[in-house]
């Protein structure tokens, strides 16, 4: 993409953005923009919905119809948008705390319904906006402001969760893997049904600094050295992330299931009109 073309996608009048130096959210957002530019979609039909947190600010910079909702509620808001106007291409872009702690219930139900939307989760293992508290994705033993003795809770394995709930497309890459991330987002956006892309991202300011990855560059090196592309037959249950451990990356599934809308339309055609005929 030429530099000038970025103005089609970004509210440049809102720059500079709020993200810290070394943060990966901008890379993930840029990957989404690249993916959109390569997809066969009209930008006027694209809607970006975010929750609250650092990643939740993406909606504010995306030059499309964009909604910055309440904490954890991007997915049900997006559900209303999609069902209110099925022509819309709905992308939820938010963080791990927003989507999987406070908003976890909505994620599992949208995946179960196979609601036609793409969820992009920037996972930096921490609540960044509030200054570095542990969440449902914080690896065991990680130091955060609310786990001063090390995290003793087990975290979610997000691809495993997404697949178990019925997502039809699931991929994970890190912000080091820009090309692969763009490709995954492209496939996710093009996919009919509930697609999910996890973008593992550095947060040097409040996560890395306390966990021996003090800069964005150090995180990129870590991602480069410790990411392992999954092979055919990989068991997604093994994709959990340990502090300092290997990060399994790749496309975990690409499968088909009828979407909520498919089932709704079928019900309307088959059942409702049949009942009406019988009554008539």
């Amino acid at each position: 993409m030429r530099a000038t073309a970025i103005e089609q996608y970004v509210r440049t009048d809102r720059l500079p953005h709020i993200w810290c130096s070394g943060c990966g959210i901008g890379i993930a957002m840029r990957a989404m923009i690249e993916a959109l530019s390569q997809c066969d979609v009209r930008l006027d039909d694209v809607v970006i919905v975010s929750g609250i947190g650092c990643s939740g600010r993406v909606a504010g910079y995306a030059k499309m119809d964009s909604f910055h909702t309440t904490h954890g509620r991007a997915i049900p808001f997006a559900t209303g948008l999609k069902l209110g106007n099925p022509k819309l291409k709905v992308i939820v872009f938010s963080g791990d705390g927003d989507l999987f702690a406070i908003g976890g219930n909505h994620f599992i139900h949208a995946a179960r319904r196979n609601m036609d939307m793409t969820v992009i989760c920037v996972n930096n293992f921490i609540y960044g906006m509030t200054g570095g508290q542990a969440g449902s994705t914080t690896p065991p033993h990680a130091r955060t402001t609310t786990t001063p003795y090390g995290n003793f809770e087990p975290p979610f394995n997000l691809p495993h969760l997404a697949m178990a709930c019925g997502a039809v497309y699931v991929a994970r890459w890190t912000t080091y893997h820009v090309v692969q991330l763009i490709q995954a987002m492209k496939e996710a956006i093009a996919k009919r049904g509930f697609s999910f892309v996890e973008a593992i991202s550095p947060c040097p300011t409040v996560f890395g600094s306390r966990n021996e990855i003090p800069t964005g560059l150090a995180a990129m090196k870590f991602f480069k050295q410790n990411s392992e592309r999954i092979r055919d037959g990989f068991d997604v249950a093994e994709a959990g992330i340990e502090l300092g451990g290997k990060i399994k990356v790749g496309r975990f599934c690409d499968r088909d299931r009828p979407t909520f809308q498919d089932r709704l339309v079928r019900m309307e055609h088959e059942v409702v009109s049949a009942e009406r005929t019988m009554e008539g």
Partner: protein
Amino acid sequence: MSDLSVLTGEHFMNGDIACAEGGLACGCRFFAGYPITPATEVAERMARRLPEVGGVYIQMEDEIASMNAILGASWAGTFSMTSTSGPGFSLMMENIGLGIMTETPCVVVNVQRGGPSTGLPTLTGQGDMMQARWGSHGDYEIIALAPQSPQECFDLTIEAFLLSEQYRVPVLVMSDEMVGHMMERVVIPPADKIPLPVRRKPRVDKDSFVAFAPCEDLVPEMPSAGDGYRIHVTGLTHDERGYPATNARAHDRLVRRLVDKIRNNAHKIFRLEESGMEDAEVAIIAYGITARVARRAMQMARERGIRAGLLRLITVWPFPEERVRRLATQVRALVVAELNMGQMVREVERFSGSTPVFSALRPGGEIQEPGEVLAVIERAAKAAAKS
């Protein structure tokens, strides 16, 4: 399709179903809900009826999701609603606030039951009146209507849609278990006699459109997602472009406008009903189901020689301050009847001046006996006579 959305004719239906039919008749085509007694019948009716008229019913995972889904559907250009009762109403509060902040039209029916907490799922109450006004955090004004019958459930749900589009605010229909579950005659007019809500779409081109620049009545115009305006909508304090502006000045400007667009237009929003007020010495103020009890109590008082009148609040929020202030100068005592431990009575007291105010209340569970309200009217009349 449209013929099925308006069931013109005389019906025998309960208030919950009448709320659903009111929504359908004026064009509601999206309902997101979650089962909860005593509001479940609204959702059940919508689940059956919306597919018949090309609309969407979705049962969400909770009331938080329901509230967000109707906000999203509204921005997609659909007239949307949900219904709930006490516990679900509590869960909706944060995102009713999002609806207020983002100026998103939608309708929330609250079929009130006894609370706090799980309280009395199957029994009536009017304990959510102050929650309706103040339940979401921060400063705002809201519009809330209180139906007294299934017919009004139908009529006021339509009114709620009209007001929500006119003022771009979530409108609350504050029904209750008794009205929701009572079966009465409901007349549904012909389709061409039903007023339809109008989305205030932008009248200027995309380049000169400023998303939250208000019109003269302080309400901005509203494009839908997908119209090509590429707007940004946020629950953060924002400027007229819709961009986050988290500073005191922008906040002052925005919150004042959100409040003033309702306050300045309150005289156009109020709906009141008065009876026996011409010669009244004691005025009863009541709303919803309690107004029916109060009406009987008023008649009984008059039979006993007490000149009682009734002011029924159809619009409860915004509160008709001026009317109550004037009323307080016309009568010698005010009686407020309601099914809570004293909520709207506080609002009445703010505007009653030196006129004494008496409360006829119960915390819900069942409606008052007319005799209970009468006893308070008699006490008020006696005190008024002494002063």
